[in-house]
Each structure stands twice: as C-alpha cells, then as structure tokens.
C-alpha cells in the first residue's frame, strides 16, 4: 500500500511568548487540514511528537474529541521522522486510510540538558561537563576537517547560505542574512564551531496529512508520494553523542544506515534527488551529512560549497528553507518542517526560494541524541 502526503501545515518557528506548544500544534493541524481540503472529523488516526509536551494528543481538546487513536511519540532528535514513519506504516498496514502526523515543541533557550543517567551515562560524566551535545558536534567536525581537508571558511559559507535561505522564508526564526565574516567573528563555543554556526532550540509546530496513495487525487491536485521513511539507531563503533568511551573498531553512523535503507526501499539513488533537507545542528553537521547520505564523497564538500552547488540554484540544493540554523530546532516538529518544505518545493509552491527546473524528488534527514537518525524520500 503506497502512501501519499496530501496536506502540510506549519506554525512558524521562533519565540512566541505565552502561546503554548499545544496551541501551536492546533494551528499547524488546521493549516494541514485546509491544505488537504478535509475536516478534523475525517481524520481516522494521529501520531504526535514532542520532547517538552508530555501529551501532544491533548490537542484534541482544541480540535475536537472524536475518539480517534492518537499515539504520542518521543524518539530523540528523530522524533518527527518517527511520527511520519509510524503514520505511514499505519496506512501501509491497511489499518486506516487517512491520518495525521503532527510535531510540536517549546524549548527554553540554550543548549539541551538532562540527567546523564537517563542516557545510560554515569553521573560524573555530566558533573565534569561532558554531557553537552554541542561539544560532540565540535569534535566530530574537527576530526572530519582533519581527515578530509574541509576548511573553516566552508563552515561559514554553509551557515551564511542557511541564513540567506531563511531570509526568504516567512516561517523562519532567523530572517536576517549574516556574512561569513560575522559568522566567523561570533563567539567560539566548541572549536571550530562559533555561535552563529549553530542552530538554537526554539518553538514551533508542523503537521502532515497522509492517505492511501490510490485515494490521493480526491484530496490534492498534486499529491506527493512518500517513497520511503526509515529510522535507525547507532551501532557499536559509530562516533556518537554522549559516549564516555568508544571501541577501537569503527563503523558508519545511523544516518548512513537510515539513508541506505531508505534509498533501497525507494528504489532510487542519491543522483535522482533534486532538493535536500539535512540536519544542520551546526554548519559542520550539514557538511558531514551531505556525504553520510550519499550525495558526495568525503572531502568533496569543500569544492561543492565553494562552487555554490548547495545553493537554491545549485546542483544539490540543501536546506532551502534555511534548515535548523535559520529555523531553530523544536525537536518534535523539526523533521515535519523538513517535509513541509520538500512538499512545497515538489509542488512548485516555494515562492522566492523555489528550486528551479521542476524538482521531482526530495529528501529529508534528521540526526541527534542519543544516536538516532531518520530519513524520508518523497517524489511527485
């Protein structure tokens, strides 16, 4: 049973004072329903993702108490990819025909924190100051630059691109272009990553209406098909966040595993993809993820970035809506924001940031703590 996306909706990402996560979720849902031309009472099931909100299904108090199965999901930084996968699989199983995936979050400013014991790490690991995700990303890109000849100016160019794309996106958190010089001159947080090379935790919501592919023409003049959606966790030997130790043996990370699985399911390859959304927790993560998802060889990013190939008009347009760097990361919503952007691009509705040449295939990837990744592949 194939699955189609027939509606997308977004509550902008940023800071919204007293507006609750649930209220943002309801706004995103209403926009997705309107986009699909359906009513809330038509929705047969839902999955809701969040880190901060214990019960995303409380949104039914605002939408309508229709009694549908509504399952809440938290799965680290791949929460939204998990919500999408579970919703799609529910349709593939033939259990329901029309459903909803929604993500919402409302984080406090500053780096994420938690009790390290909840991540199977000892207390002293946190006491010493090692339980910091940004430090992992600093180490990973620093080593990657050493091994594959990537320069600091490439990191600044990637961040500048994402701020530039964010300026074209009315829903983005950061809508001011920043120069490479300003990015390099901002405060060093974890060498070689400066403050403006990182995304920030923030607030927002996104929703997607899915249906059986054979019914999609009822709802949408241009349905977008979900060709694959895969979630993977780390294997022993992957270089992962929150690891007090690593074995001598080295293996690929969960992004590589999720990407390969998704491409295999979809029956297409990286060369077929026209628009790409990658997890840019920091500029270095976008550089690494470009290779981990199969879009280039390790080290080729230096030339690709210098030649502008990751720009909206380039050969590999990456993070056309500004990515996490310009949108921030409300964990529960982040991956559905990526899907929202890819759907607009494939429909030709992305306005000023539209990828030229009538893109046919889009790709999204999430990665983060505690070593989990999610990939989806969409096509017209």
């Amino acid at each position, binding site marked *: 049973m194939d699955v189609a996306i027939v509606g997308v909706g977004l509550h902008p990402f940023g800071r919204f004072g007293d507006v609750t996560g649930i209220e943002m979720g309801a706004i995103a849902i209403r926009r997705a329903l309107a986009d699909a031309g359906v009513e809330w009472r038509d929705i047969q099931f839902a999955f809701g993702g969040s880190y901060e909100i214990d019960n995303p299904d409380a949104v039914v108090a605002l939408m309508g108490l229709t009694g549908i199965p509504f399952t809440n999901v938290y799965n680290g930084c791949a929460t939204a990819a998990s919500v999408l996968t579970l919703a799609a699989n529910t349709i593939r199983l033939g259990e329901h025909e029309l459903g909803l995936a929604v993500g919402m979050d409302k984080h406090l400013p500053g780096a994420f924190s938690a009790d390290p014991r909840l991540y199977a790490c000892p207390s*002293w690991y946190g*006491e010493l*100051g090692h339980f910091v995700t940004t430090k992992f990303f600093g180490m990973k890109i620093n*080593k990657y630059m050493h091994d594959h000849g990537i320069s600091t100016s490439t990191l600044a160019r990637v961040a500048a691109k994402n701020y530039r794309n964010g300026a074209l996106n009315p829903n983005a958190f950061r809508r001011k272009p920043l120069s490479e010089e300003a990015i390099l001159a901002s405060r060093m947080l974890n060498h070689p990553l400066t403050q403006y090379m990182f995304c920030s935790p923030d607030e927002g919501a996104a929703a997607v209406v899915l249906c059986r592919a054979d019914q999609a023409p009822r709802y949408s003049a241009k349905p977008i098909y979900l060709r694959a959606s895969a979630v993977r966790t780390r294997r022993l030997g992957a270089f992962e966040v929150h690891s007090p130790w690593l074995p001598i043996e080295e293996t690929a990370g969960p992004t590589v595993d999720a990407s390969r699985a998704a491409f295999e399911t979809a029956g297409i390859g990286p060369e077929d993809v026209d628009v790409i959304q990658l997890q840019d927790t920091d500029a270095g993560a976008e550089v690494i993820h470009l290779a981990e998802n199969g879009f280039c060889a390790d080290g080729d990013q230096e030339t690709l970035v210098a030649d502008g190939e990751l720009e909206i008009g380039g050969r590999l347009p990456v993070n056309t809506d500004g990515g996490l760097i310009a949108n921030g990361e409300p964990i529960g919503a982040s991956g559905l924001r990526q899907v929202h952007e890819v759907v607009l691009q494939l429909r030709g509705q992305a306005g000023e940031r539209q990828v030229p040449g009538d893109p046919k295939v889009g790709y999204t990837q999430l990665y983060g703590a505690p070593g989990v990744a999610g990939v989806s592949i969409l096509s017209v």
Partner: protein
Amino acid sequence: MARVPVAEGVFTWSDDPQLIGSRCSACGIVTFPVQDSCPRCGSTDMAERLLPRRGRLWAWTTQEFPPPSPPYAGPTGDAFVPFGVGYVELAGEVKVETRLTEANALRIGMDMELVLVPFRTDDGGNEVVTFAFRPVG
C-alpha cells in the same frame, strides 16, 4: 582540606593513576567505565581491567562556555576556564572521552598521558580531583 576523587571506581588513586575499565571475557571488548554487560555480545561475564596510561589523541574540541548546570558541577561565571575535551585512544584497547589539560596547540595523533587534576572545591571544602590527559613530549 582533603583531596577526593570525582567518583569512586573511575580511576586508581596513585602517582601513576590508571582508568578502571572492564573487559568482556567472551568477546574481549574493553569498556570505560566499568559496565556489567557487554555492548557487543551481550555477555554478563565482565572483568575489571586497568587501562593503559598513555595513548594518542583521536578527536578533540574545546568547551568554551560553562555547560548547563545541573548536571555540570564545575566552576561557572568568572571562575569558568575554557578547557579542551577529546577522545584518547589507549594502545589499541579503547577510546576514552576525557578532559584535556590544554585547550590550545592540540593536534590529532599527538601522544597523551593520564594525570589527575583539581576540578572543583565541594561544600565540605574538599578538593575534588578528576582525570585528564596531557600532551607528552
């Protein structure tokens, strides 16, 4: 004022300290710190193992802002001093994540050695000591 370790069972308390890890009797993988089951083969037959004191720097960065507290318990505000952090590969056995005594002039592949360094002063006035690695040579 007494000197106390940041936690028991993490390193030996001597002039030539060693980290305390464990080794799986079934598959041979070495972990740090000690854990009572094997992340590779699932065996619960793990034996304590004292790790080599020297190794090579495998990856590094700097921590230039005070980590969120809790869980971070070290100096904050004006007392915070940026520090280096990285993984040191210990003689083909295991890579351990560690504070580094330097935040500058670090390079991947350099030789490193385990030392004990002051971390903070606790409420009882004791000097809390942690492990770190310093460049040698």
